[in-house]
């Protein structure tokens, strides 16, 4: 019997996922005792496969920060950062992390967060780089900036093996080789390409299952809510990426959701509207946000968040060729960046496609006050999708973890009005069909 099934027998996948995330968090606090080097990484463009091959324990500061929101500790951490001098206009994740540093790395989960031996910041979010500079100043840990070129324009085509793809992949591979040299220096270990291939094989299996799990929500009723249950699933995908435990969890999750589909069980008892969510969650009020939609029989069948915050490999069914692990890592990372991770800037086509694939009734855009990566042009995107595709859309605004930007009455009013629109639209359709 596997480690996962022993630990979680009889539990559903969401509870198991929460336990795994907590187990991972707890393990961060003991990394030093185990003699494990520690790397700080982000969810987009992190080269985790290489780091895992070297035996690094991975800290995701984004997850640390969102956890301060989930655990209702974010206001205090953010206030500490603002008292230190950070502007209210700076990303609240960054400020929560600064608050953690100013709290002697004592995370509200109870874990004493380790300081990094290595920090990898990709260019997929420029704030990552500024964040890594803060660590440089605080911990003296030099940042390793991984530049991963994204899409250059909306209809950008750079298929696998094309000259453009190979040029970009060569660039990424060159940086991976630099990263490997730095890892060798830090850990004193030689790079082991067989171990990299092993990690990649686990990632391949996790992604294969993840793609099917995402597709299960094309069924009506949708078996899970992308922006509630899906967040837990994705947390495991990130934290346990490239591990046997991660593979086992995905199998468990896959089996559970397949069962729900077979039995016709939906997340919402009487599913009336299927929606696509674009943007990031509001972790301090996510349950409330979901409740506002589910009370109208609305379910988030799909979300772009479950692609770009999960590494982007699902965006085009990308898998590593483990017979040439490093080269393939560079090629796939490049494609993932261009097809899944840089989509915020040109997401109108992808959202329209998701609407079709998931037979959705509308798109909900969630603009984040402090996240320009995701939210800068959402309103423009919405205008395009509404006028070109005639799709019902809703735009609401709050923040990732800063509760000052959550206005319950205003958001509720907007959500209620949106469902009125959907109801009217449906009534009109049924009249026309008669």
């Amino acid at each position, binding site marked *: 019997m596997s480690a996962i099934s022993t630990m979680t027998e009889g539990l559903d996948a969401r509870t198991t996922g929460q336990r795994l995330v907590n187990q991972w968090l707890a393990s961060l606090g003991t990394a030093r005792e185990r003699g494990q080097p520690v790397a700080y990484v982000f969810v987009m463009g992190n080269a985790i496969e290489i780091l895992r091959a070297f035996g690094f324990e991975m800290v995701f500061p984004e997850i640390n920060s969102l956890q301060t929101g989930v655990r209702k500790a974010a206001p205090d951490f953010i206030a500490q950062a603002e008292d230190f001098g*950070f*502007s209210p*206009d700076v990303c609240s994740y*960054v400020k929560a992390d600064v608050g953690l540093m100013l709290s002697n790395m004592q995370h509200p989960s109870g874990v004493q967060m380790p300081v990094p031996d290595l920090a990898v910041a990709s260019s997929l979010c420029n704030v990552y780089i*500024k964040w890594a500079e803060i660590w440089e100043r605080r911990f003296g840990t030099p940042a390793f900036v991984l*530049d991963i070129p994204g899409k250059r324009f909306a209809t950008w085509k750079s298929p696998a093996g094309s000259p453009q793809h190979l040029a970009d992949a060569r660039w990424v591979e*060159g940086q991976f080789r630099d990263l490997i040299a730095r890892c060798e220096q830090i850990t004193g270990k030689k790079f082991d390409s067989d171990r990299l291939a092993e990690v990649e094989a686990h990632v391949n299996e996790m992604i294969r299952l993840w793609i099917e799990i995402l597709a299960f929500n094309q069924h009506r009723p949708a078996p899970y809510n992308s922006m509630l249950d899906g967040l837990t699933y994705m947390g495991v995908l990130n934290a346990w990426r490239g591990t046997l435990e991660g593979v086992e969890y995905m199998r468990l999750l896959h089996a559970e959701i397949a069962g729900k589909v077979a039995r016709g069980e939906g997340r919402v008892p009487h599913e009336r509207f299927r929606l696509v969510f674009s943007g990031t969650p509001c972790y301090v009020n996510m349950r409330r946000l979901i409740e506002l939609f589910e009370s109208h029989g609305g379910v988030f069948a799909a979300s772009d968040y479950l692609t770009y915050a999960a590494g982007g490999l699902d965006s085009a069914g990308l898998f590593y060729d483990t017979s040439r692990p490093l080269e393939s890592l560079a090629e796939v990372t490049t494609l993932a960046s261009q097809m899944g991770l840089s989509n915020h800037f040109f997401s109108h086509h992808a959202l329209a496609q998701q609407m079709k694939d998931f037979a959705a009734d509308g798109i909900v855009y969630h603009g984040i006050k402090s996240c320009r990566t995701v939210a800068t042009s959402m309103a*423009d995107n919405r205008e395009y999708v509404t006028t070109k595709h005639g799709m019902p859309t809703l735009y609401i*605004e709050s923040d990732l973890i800063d509760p000052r930007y959550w206005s319950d009455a205003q958001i509720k009013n907007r959500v209620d009005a949106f469902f009125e629109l959907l109801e009217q639209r449906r009534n009109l359709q049924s009249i026309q069909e008669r």
Partner: protein
Amino acid sequence: MMNDVEVSTGGIDAADASMTLMAVLERCFELAMRTGVADQEQPGAIGYFPVYFPEEIVHAAGLRPHALLGGGNKLEVRLADARIGSFVCSICRSTTEQGLNRSLHGMKGFFTQPICDAAKHMAGIWGRNFPAQPSQILALPQNVNSSASVRYVYDEYQRLRSVLAAQVGHDIPDAAIRASLHVYNENRRLQRELYRIRRDDPARLSTVETYLLVRAGTRVRREEHNQLLRDALRLLAERPVRPRDKPRVIFLGGFCEQPPLEMIETIEDACFIVDDDLLIGQRWITEDIAADDGDPVWALAKSYVEHSASSPVQFDARKPKEEMLMRMLRDARAEAAIITAAKFCEPGLDDQLALSHRLDAEKVPYLVLEFEEKMTSFEQMAMQVETFAESLLFQ
């Protein structure tokens, strides 16, 4: 104040030997404050978002690089507010407004760069709203510390070259790029000389004047700009100078969104600004590019990686932000710093804090200011600056 100058360019020829310094500055003012691109403008303009852009390739294609510098404080934003988040900086908003109100309708293309997350979105906004203007991200790297960096920049520049060649309908030969490198090398030499004069003799050349002289280059072909700068340098040498006693400061925060001219004037009323990062992209390359040795595009790419300035929006392990600040203070023989950031500019705001901490540690006086290109009231800022300058004079 230059803003009060009645602008008249009629009959002024940039190459006219009898031109006065005031006439050169008036011409530069008129050019610098142009924000639109007319429909039939020739040569065709390729718009680019800050900070740096390899203009030489555009120039070699026979086109005119047009730096998009926002709408300033004369533009009323009416259409863009509905398209862009409320938490996004003014330059993204006003650039979008200029697209929507058709004042940039004459542009033949639009490029933005991964300088920040908001800037990356500009390519999507442009593509959705102005499909007739090809819009792209020129993916300049955030890692210039890899042995593979030059090669990557080279590949990206070659891609740009192909896009522009398709635009003009013919190849862009190496010889044309070499010729453009020479024109731009001269332009940067002239800009460096301008900055040297302002640093060594700030009473001779103000920062507003320096700024206008540099900014004018974003609106004409560089040959014409070179002539303007040559005229200005010649005439500056003859300018009578009245010594004045003001503290010497450096100004930071003007690398992307531009502070209003009145803000620079407000600071200059009380201080000599002896170095700055205003329009830093215009002099991003810090040394002459080897125009005649080997592949000119490679030389351009190599210069970007190895001989370039710094800004909050590019990571370079060789150039820690605080060290660059201290070097700038030393080189400019400045006694204090004015550290500004545009509202909602996350990279600028992050650096503003880090630099302030370093200045605290070094016991260097500094003033922190936040600005927006659209601001129109400067009374409070004037009071802050005057108080700061007095504290420097009497410390």
